[in-house]
């Protein structure tokens, strides 16, 4: 079976997950993103690539930052952007996801950026569009359930490549709440595909999936041991809103063992970079001194995220 994200020519048609994408496509996205970073320096921060196209931001879950960066990316490409505030719209009146999609297609949508609490919702949309013969309409997954957040994974790879150049000699640690994290899954798949030889995950047993070693990662429950000599520290947000049941005694206790502080970071290489997908819980998974310190590249991640999303949108629109 063909990867549902690729068309018959092997070009990216939708971006649903990093899983199964070949290294050449990931590299092509990162390469394409590089010239887009320069657009932000111009007097007119706009390119005409998506002129006349309608991009619908469908956020069934709230995310101000992700929605905003997708919106900026689409607007810098001259697209018309329509933000649907789903919680106050027809879904609240009982409309199904696919009925919503059909209605927006009838309004000549060209691209959907979708965030949904259910894993697989963007895939369902892509499948539905194919069944309706609407292959020219593209779907970008902006985070679905616990499944994937591919543009976050890609912007993280862009950031790592920007600072560390070569993936094939890096040791990377992902720290925190892995069990609820679609970001971590996309990061691990992207790091492995791009050839990172050592990927570590660090967290308490209750927040690490038991079968995660199948993804080719080393599991650490002791943070100092896990951070030893790493080049890249990727922090995850403690997903308070997804935390049902007693997985953690308290955020304070989590901070004591797994919060990134300057003395824990000292176990990593001195030139290690510290990343965080945001929004940060200061004093829970990361200490302010580290978040604002010289190793942090958290704000550049946000800036690079716009260029990466511009690259993805223009690659999809060009197929």
């Amino acid at each position, binding site marked *: 079976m063909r990867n549902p994200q690729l068309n018959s020519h092997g070009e990216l048609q939708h971006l649903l997950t990093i899983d199964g994408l070949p290294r050449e496509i990931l590299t092509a996205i990162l390469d394409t993103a590089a010239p887009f970073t*320069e657009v932000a320096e*111009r007097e007119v921060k706009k*390119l005409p690539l998506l002129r006349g196209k309608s991009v619908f931001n469908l956020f069934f879950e709230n995310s101000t930052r992700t929605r905003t960066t997708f919106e900026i990316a689409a607007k810098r490409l001259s697209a018309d952007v329509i933000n649907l505030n789903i919680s106050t719209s027809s879904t609240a009146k009982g409309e199904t996801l696919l009925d919503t999609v059909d209605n927006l297609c009838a309004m000549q949508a060209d691209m959907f950026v979708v965030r949904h609490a259910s894993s697989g919702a963007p895939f369902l949309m892509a499948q539905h569009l194919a069944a309706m013969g609407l292959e020219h309409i593209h779907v970008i997954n902006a985070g679905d359930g616990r499944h994937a957040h591919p543009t976050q994974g890609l912007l993280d790879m862009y950031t790592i490549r920007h600072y560390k150049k070569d993936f094939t000699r890096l040791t990377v640690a992902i720290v925190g709440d892995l069990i609820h994290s679609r970001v971590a899954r996309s990061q691990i798949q992207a790091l492995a595909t791009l050839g990172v030889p050592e990927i570590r995950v660090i967290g308490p047993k209750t927040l690490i999936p038991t079968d995660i070693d199948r993804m080719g990662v080393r599991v650490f429950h002791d943070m100092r041991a896990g951070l030893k000599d790493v080049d890249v520290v990727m922090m995850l947000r403690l997903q308070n809103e997804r935390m049902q049941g007693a997985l953690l005694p308290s955020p304070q206790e989590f901070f004591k063992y797994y919060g990134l502080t300057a003395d824990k970071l000292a176990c990593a290489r001195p030139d290690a970079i510290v990343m965080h997908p945001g929004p940060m819980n200061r004093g829970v998974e990361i200490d302010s001194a580290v978040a604002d310190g010289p190793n942090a590249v958290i704000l550049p991640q946000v800036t690079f995220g716009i260029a990466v999303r511009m690259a993805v949108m223009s690659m999809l*629109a*060009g197929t």
Partner: protein
Amino acid sequence: MALPDAEALCRVLAERLRPELLPQTALVGIHTGGVWVAERLHAALGLKTPLGSIDVAFYRDDFNRSGLHPQLKPSDIPFDVEDRPIVIVDDVLYTGRTIRAAMNEIFDYGRPARIDLAVLVDRGGRELPVCPRWSAHELSLPARQNLQLERGADGNLSLRLVDA
């Protein structure tokens, strides 16, 4: 067909530009061949303003048909465009669509005093009202042939005909 020597054409083009340049004139080469020619002109003319370069892929009018080509180069305009005379430099002038795209891109950096066009070879076949102010060589080619500027391992530029 015997093609002229590209390095000699660069020298001819430089001499045609020389008397008409202003001190603040800036050259902007179009990736990739146009940048090579612009580098030659910039050195030969001893211009003070640093050389600019643009990749017009983001501004092409055939994006919907052919998508983005994979090897994009970042555009680099290392000077203030506002009120400056600018010379766009390209290797081969054909339909004029690339020049249209290049002008659009330059205007996104500011409002230049004027834009002129210098090309190594004008091969005819225009589809837009674009006319070079300077060209080093003119010839007429059928649509089935493309003229390409290439750079050898020794750094020397040469022209080559290929089937379209």
